[in-house]
């Protein structure tokens, strides 16, 4: 079941669109914000409110890079793997993160603290290499800087 909070946030989107189906991406983002990821049960809950099947929702969820159908860590590291960051040494930064956290790209640390995901260009190319951790953008990455940044997220 959707929590009252999830339901209220989703319903606040209804007036912005002419039908409930159009709200489904917002709805999935809202539920993911509260639960971390979109389980089958989460899709059932959303589908019930929006009048959609969970299969339809799954089709939409799997299309979008920022909707997760598998569990992720408490913090998600989004590391840019596009061209400007690649030129500026993005691969070395990725190797450093993987080594430090003991995971490969796409994996979650054993303690559930971090998931590392490669993402496309984050639009801060004059400060490449760039990553986001959750909602925050971090620029001009170096191994030392990455170590300091990751310390901030428990």
């Amino acid at each position, binding site marked *: 079941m959707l929590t009252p909070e999830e339901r209220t946030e989703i319903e606040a989107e209804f007036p*912005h*669109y*002419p*039908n409930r*189906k*159009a*709200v*489904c*991406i*917002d709805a*999935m*983002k809202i539920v993911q914000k509260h639960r971390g990821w979109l389980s089958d049960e989460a899709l059932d809950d959303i589908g019930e409110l929006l009048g959609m099947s969970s299969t339809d929702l799954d*089709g*939409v969820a799997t*299309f*979008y*890079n*920022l*909707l997760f159908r598998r569990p992720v860590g408490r913090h998600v590291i*989004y590391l840019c*793997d*596009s*061209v*400007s960051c*690649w*030129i*500026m040494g993005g691969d070395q930064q990725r190797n450093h993160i993987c080594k430090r956290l003991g995971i490969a790209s796409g994996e979650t640390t054993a303690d559930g603290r971090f998931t590392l995901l490669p*993402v*496309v*260009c*984050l*639009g*801060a*190319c*004059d*400060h*490449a290499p760039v990553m*986001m951790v959750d*909602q*925050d*953008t971090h620029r001009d990455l170096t191994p030392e800087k990455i170590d300091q940044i990751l310390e901030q997220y428990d």
Partner: protein
Amino acid sequence: MPDDKPLTGNMRSDGVALDLKAYERAGGYEGLRKALGGMTPAAVIEEVKDSNLRGRGGAGFPTGLKWSFIPDKAPHPRYVVANGDEMEPGTFKDRILVELDPHQLVEGMILAGYATGADIGYAFLRGEYTVGAERVARAIAEAYEAGYLGKDILHSGYSFEIYLHLSAGRYMCGEETGLLNALEGKRANPRAKPPFPPASGLFGKPTTINNVETLCNVPHIIRNGAGWYRGLSRSKDGGTKIYGASGKVKRPGLWELPMGTTIREIIEEHAGGMRDGLQLRGLLPGGASTDFLTGEHLDAPMDFAGVQSVGSRLGTGTMIILDDKTCPVGMVSNLEHFFSQESCGWCTPCWSGLGWAERILRAMEEGRGKPGDLEKLAFQARFWAPGHTFCALAPGAAEPLQSALKHFRADFERHIDEKRCPWK
């Protein structure tokens, strides 16, 4: 306001967004007052047509002409969509517009709405622009409070709503019909055209879609006039352009300059030239989906015709610089990985061909290139040409590949002959 930088001249250097008061002090919403106070929608469209403003999202379609495609008798509700899904690799210009001067976008959307008789606007922003989203949301709220949005705006009888939509992330959302599907809560596959969005767009209603930078120009055009706007430019295309450079130049960044500023001036004067010890090998002038240019093209003006005349496209105007210590094959491999991953899977040349090319390029980088690979790559790139797919993703993917095969052929051949990447 510094007259020569209407888009960025008012921005604060400390990174704080202009609020409503600061925006108004700089002349903000005067364009809207002028339009609603005495210009017909047709007159607004004429002014924008006269300004020679062309779309800043990559395709360069004349903005006034696009607006005129909404027929007078078209049904309601009509929509205006601001395309802020800035996901073209190497492109970071719309970010500063939404982060530092969000009212400019709001006013541009209202003016576009008035000109096309629209009822509702959606500001579509990529989900990763969290700071921009917060600031655009605040600007929208301030505009409602001040009577610039909502019912009977400034007692003109015109009403317009704006809603903010944050994307869940996919390059396809930048393609205009993919974006419309995303707003409808669907996978962002492209739609068959015709019908085009002015006839049947969002929720099947008449819709106008403009890039964020395009819309940000409109308040200034209406306030100061088309003649003033044309005068900002060094070329036939009106206005200024936010140019950018990333890669190993001394000072990567963004600069608002007259449309038609040369590539050389942008790289050498504004970006400070190449870092010490590096030579310029090539550049993508306007994002990942533009053809490579090389050192011989630096005197081309960065406007739509100028870049086209040397074999590429202005695109988003934010260039990605390739230096002589970076492997061009590796760069193309990175680009095709991006396009292949972001393909929506709708059209065969795209979902099949991009992955094929990506695998060939990766193999080449790993020393497993084979004779005949370059012919296969060229063959694939021809299949991605416009007309073979529903949208411009595959044609965009062809541009850096086909041009790299031309300009850096010897580098590709060395990878195959030496069975390794010579840069590693």
